[in-house]
């Protein structure tokens, strides 16, 4: 009897904590959706800011974020994938590789502001790229690189060894085996990593603060050397700069909703792909 009461008590406690969690997260999402919907319109997405950032739309920030993410993936994907393939398929298995793997996975949890510092020192100043899409894109690329390497490597190592054996035994070369058997089989896992990296790159603020983003930029970016507006930085700037906090907050709600939906859609896609393919080789 006593045991039953104890169980009842603790299970209630657990349920309450889950309810509190749900409540907290629902409140946040509710506020952003409710106020964001009021701010968003077709014009909001497609037009430029007006009246000293108190009216108009945020299209330059959307375009800027798109450019930054595209640049980041363009740099990090070939590097990260090649690195993962080399480490998993070619490199001799020894302690140096283990150290590299541990190092890479550790870098994935380094605070993003530290990557911002790196980008500022190396890309903006040392290489003289200035505050630009190039600098910001490279910084974001380095930020997501460990993620891409780790997830791709996990995806490759999840491909059963027997597939490689079968292909080699048929007279395929190692590269043929990797390209035609291993990579296709690992594709869902690799894709999941890329999509999550896109979401991460799109949402990060600290790394682009000093390397790419500005509060206001007239017109579209004309080259990868131009500075840009970006959604996450725009939210920050709207809340901390400018002269009309009330009107700016409304616009920030709109930006937050766009960013939230964008990242949520990307991660749903990633979760979906992963769950769909998770167990396909387990027999």
């Amino acid at each position, binding site marked *: 009897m006593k045991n039953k009461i104890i169980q009842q008590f603790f299970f209630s406690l657990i349920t309450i904590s889950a309810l509190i969690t749900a409540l907290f997260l629902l409140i946040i999402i509710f506020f952003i959706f409710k106020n964001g919907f009021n701010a968003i319109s077709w014009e909001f997405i497609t037009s430029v800011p007006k009246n000293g950032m108190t009216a108009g739309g945020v299209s330059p920030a959307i375009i800027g974020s798109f450019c930054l993410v595209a640049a980041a993936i363009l740099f990090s994907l070939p590097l990260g994938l090649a690195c993962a393939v080399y480490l998993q398929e070619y490199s*001799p*298995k020894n302690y140096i590789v283990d150290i590299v793997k541990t190092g890479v996975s550790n870098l994935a949890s380094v605070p993003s502001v530290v990557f911002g510092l790196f980008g500022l020192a190396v890309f903006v100043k040392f290489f003289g790229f200035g505050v630009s899409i190039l600098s910001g894109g490279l910084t974001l690329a380095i930020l997501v690189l460990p993620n891409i390497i780790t997830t791709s490597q996990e995806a490759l190592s999840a491909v*059963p060894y*027997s*597939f490689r*054996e*079968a*292909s*080699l*035994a*048929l*007279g*395929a*070369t190692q590269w*043929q085996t990797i390209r*035609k*058997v291993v990579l*296709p*089989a690992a594709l869902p896992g690799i894709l999941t990593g890329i999509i999550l990296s896109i979401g991460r790159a799109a949402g990060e603020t600290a790394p682009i603060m000093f390397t790419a983003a500005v509060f206001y930029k007239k017109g579209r970016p004309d080259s990868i050397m131009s500075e840009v507006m970006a959604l996450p930085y725009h939210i920050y700037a709207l809340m901390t700069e400018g002269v009309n906090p009330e009107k700016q907050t409304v616009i920030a709600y709109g930006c937050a909703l766009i960013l939230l939906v964008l990242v949520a859609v990307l991660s749903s896609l990633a979760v979906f792909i992963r769950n769909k393919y998770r167990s*396909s*080789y387990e*027999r």
Partner: protein
Amino acid sequence: MSDEIKIKVSNLNFYYGKMQALKNINIDIMDKKITALIGPSGCGKSTLIRIFNRMCDLVIGAKAEGSVIFDGENILNSSIDIVKLRQKIGMVFQKPNPFPKTIFQNIAYGLEINGCKDKSFIKFKVEETLKKAALWEDVKDRLNDSALGLSGGQQQRLCIARALAVEAQVILFDEPCASLDPISTAKIEELILELQNNYAIIIVTHNMQQASRVSDYTAFMYLGDLIEFGSTNQIFTVPKNPKTEEYLSGKFG
């Protein structure tokens, strides 16, 4: 029936790092015959079969001495084209391992990696080898379905067909029925017996009955040594070596 030697193994020693896995092995593999390799786990039978198509290269620290003559060449030579060798000597593994592709693509794979682009030839080959592997009737209507949807026995026959498609002359079977039910096993054995008309076949097995049912020759290995090699009939009825007798009567292994 020819009595031609297909593979001649002389004074073969094999090492994994410092561990010697095979000790001075001498054995002749006959063409159009089935040779069974038996022995307790760790005796080196799987290592030996993997030397024939140089799959043993994939293990770090592997080193082979001696000679394994196939087609007039010592396949242990570093100058040998492993890719060509593996096309001539196919392998079927313990666990069916079809690629996560369609049935058609599984067979076509070996042809495509060898640069074959002739679609109608590939189509012809797929049908021909599936027929040879006694799988055609089961799958002819679903060639574009995933191979992973087949049953274990069907998957294994697909893997056999896949090896036949690249014009293999020798087929290595590494415990091909270890993960199959008795009915599938019987079908695979039937298929192996049929294949012997055109191929030299080497089969590693834990199953004594299987060895006695399908093979012409049997080699008994123990701790890296080839203890006894002879016709299956002789090995199973009048083994010369007492070790062989003990093993066959189930005293160890």
